[in-house]
């Protein structure tokens, strides 16, 4: 990739949000007109427990530069324990992806409640900035794999 | 030489929804290039691989008859990835086909003889092709009898044509449904039972059976009882296919490849193939 392209490059980030907390948090950020980078595409899921690690790996393979998964704070899950189960999955997935050499910034997790519009904006800003720093995804991207 | 894996470009000309559930649709396809139309020579019983770029290919029996010029007809049941996508097509959309593939019903051998056609469900497609072909060359053939069954009246395909065929005097069409419903004026009962009841004569006759495996399984003994010789009992097999040209291996049964040695087989042939039925 050339320098020039790099300047114009905008990261594409998939935000997988749970229906009950983080999606509502994003909604609140919106109606409160809180500014955050426009780089995320939102995928709404019933619960962070619904997030199959395959979703995350497939997103990277199909060209997303990063994935953010956000759910209810521990103890707040609409389904009582969905986010606890999710947390265990992520606890394995994250170091595993790092281990094979996927930049740690690319896949991030957060808890954002329905009332935390401000926090949602902060999370998205941080993730976007992190991914900007590491640049366009090239590993695990189908057709673009590079060393 | 043209690459045989590259599909022939076609356009969807007409779509007919066959059943109220909208799981069966009939597609008339036109050739985009006239030269392809001229080259496409087929006979009833053959099939094509229909191709949607980016989605894949699926094999379908040709429901039109070579005597109907200018288009190809396919009736497609919505079951999987490709068929789902085909059901999303609209008139005017582009599709591809590869074919004609496979062998055909032995219409030459039928000449001067009686033909009994037994069909069930939406596997009726190539039987339609056969019937239209026979009717177009009506003088070449003896009596034509057709028994066609469906679970309920809604599930018959080509309903308009069925109406017309019922009225014809130069053929006999018997329709049957599994369970009686109000207003139904034809047979009631499974295809094997109705076939047994009608007992078409095996004298100078051929029988073509096509339908779901379970129907074939129970119809063949009935037909054998009617004294049709195995060589004159014709059926069309279905197997999972990919290449359609006898290479990729998945439709292999015994030493035969359903896609190139079949799909049309006589019972005599099938009896030599382990586990074909």
């Amino acid at each position, binding site marked *: 990739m050339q320098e020039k392209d790099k300047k114009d490059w905008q990261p594409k980030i998939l935000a997988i949000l749970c229906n009950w907390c983080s999606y509502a948090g994003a909604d609140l950020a919106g109606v409160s007109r809180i500014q955050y980078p426009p780089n995320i595409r939102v995928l709404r899921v019933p619960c962070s427990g619904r997030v199959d690690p395959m979703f995350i790996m497939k997103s990277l393979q199909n060209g997303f530069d990063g994935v953010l998964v956000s759910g209810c704070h521990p103890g707040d899950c609409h389904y009582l324990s969905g986010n606890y189960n999710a947390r265990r999955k992520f606890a394995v997935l994250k170091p595993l992806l790092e281990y094979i050499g996927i930049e740690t910034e690319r896949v991030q997790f957060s808890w954002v409640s329905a009332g935390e519009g401000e926090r949602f904006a902060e999370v998205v800003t941080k993730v976007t900035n992190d991914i900007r720093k590491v640049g366009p995804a090239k590993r695990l991207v189908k057709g673009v794999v590079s060393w | *030489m*043209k*690459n*045989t*894996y*590259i*599909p022939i*470009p076609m356009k969807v000309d007409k779509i007919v929804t066959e059943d109220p559930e909208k799981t069966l649709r009939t597609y008339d396809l036109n050739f985009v290039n006239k030269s392809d139309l001229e080259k496409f020579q087929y006979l009833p019983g053959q099939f094509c691989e229909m191709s*949607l*770029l*980016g*989605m*894949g*290919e*699926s094999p379908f029996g040709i429901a039109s008859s070579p005597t109907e010029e200018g288009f190809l007809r396919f009736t497609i049941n919505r*079951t*999987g990835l490709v*068929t789902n996508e085909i059901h999303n097509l609209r008139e005017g959309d*582009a599709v591809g086909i590869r074919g004609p593939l496979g062998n055909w019903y032995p219409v030459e051998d039928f000449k001067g003889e009686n033909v009994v056609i037994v069909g069930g469900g939406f596997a009726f497609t190539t039987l339609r092709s056969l019937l239209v072909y026979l009717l177009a060359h009506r003088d070449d053939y003896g009596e034509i009898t057709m028994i066609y069954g469906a679970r309920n009246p809604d599930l018959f395909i080509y309903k308009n044509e069925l109406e017309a065929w019922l009225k014809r005097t130069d053929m006999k069409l018997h329709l049957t449904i599994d369970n009686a419903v109000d207003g139904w004026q034809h047979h009631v009962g499974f295809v094997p039972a109705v076939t047994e009841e009608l007992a078409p004569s095996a004298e100078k006759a051929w029988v073509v059976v096509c339908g779901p*495996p379970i129907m074939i399984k129970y119809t063949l003994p009935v037909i054998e009882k009617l004294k049709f010789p195995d060589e004159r009992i014709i059926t069309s097999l*279905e*197997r*999972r296919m*990919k*290449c359609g*040209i*006898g*290479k*990729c*291996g*998945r439709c*292999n*049964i*015994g*030493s035969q*490849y359903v896609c*190139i*040695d079949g799909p049309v087989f006589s019972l005599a042939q099938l009896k030599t193939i*382990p*586990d074909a039925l």
Partner: protein
Amino acid sequence: MIKIEKSNFGTFIQNLSADYSLFAPVGEGQQSAFREVKNAEQINTHIQITQNSPKTVFLPQTEVLFEFSGDDIQSEEKPAKPMFFWGVRSCDAKSLNLLDKVMGQSKQRPDDPAFQDPYWKARFDDAIILTLACNEPASTCFCNWTGGSPFSKDAGDLWAVETETAYLVEPLSEKGEAFVKGLSGYDTASEKDKQSIAKLKKQAESYLQPAVDAETLKEKLPQTWEDPLWDEVSAKCVNCSACAFICPTCYCFDIQDEGKKDKGKRIRTWDCCMFPIFTKEASGHNPRSLARERVRQRVMHKFRYFWEIYGESLCTGCGRCVRVCPVNLDIREVAKQLLEADSAA
């Protein structure tokens, strides 16, 4: 028969690689395969048999059938230069001929080019195969079961024997004839060389185990169809496709689309009759849903079905599957068990 001194081998290979895409055995053990080489140093000249057969070049595990963009379809069949294969064992040379019967030709529609595989033909028809006699067959080799032998001249365009100091080469086909004519500056093999061939041949053949007659097996197989022996032989099979993917004559493939509707490619990629989904239909029905049926299919296809169509076995006895099977399901043992089985006719 011409003689290429080993001292000249480097130059010979160098010249060859200028005119052809030159493929030869490369690498050791599990990594060994036929790969394109530019010079003699890259070639593994002492290998008994490569783990990956030359099939992987003619029918690659995955290849693009065509790429599409909108309605536009582009395909590429022809390799830039014709291929020359150095050091193919006779079993593998034979396997290419067997594959050609399926891929390059069509028994059912011999005259219709629509039933020939254009990608296979583009590679195989112009390729020159040099069959290198097998001086030291491995203990897993059983080419003698199905009509082969370490020094067989039945397949290939050229035939060569490695002696202590040289490679002795003779043509087997018209293509080979023309190739040899195009060579200059090489001696003709002497009487003494020919004697050493006879000696090597005798020694090589002595390494092989006694043959089981594949033709008897072929006759026997239909009787075994319902035999409970199939349960026994298939019991340990885990239904992976290591045997098939490593087999020089397994050709089954799948066709898949990758990419999106408006831009992507149609690829083909090896598939295997050991996988349950290989034959699973959209309705959910599977004609070969049991492991026993799939193992039986594979054995029957190699030793019976192919024979019914083409008059010979589809197994060339290279022994790769024997070596690679994770549960040591040895096809030779299966064949012997089937032959000994007391199956009712």
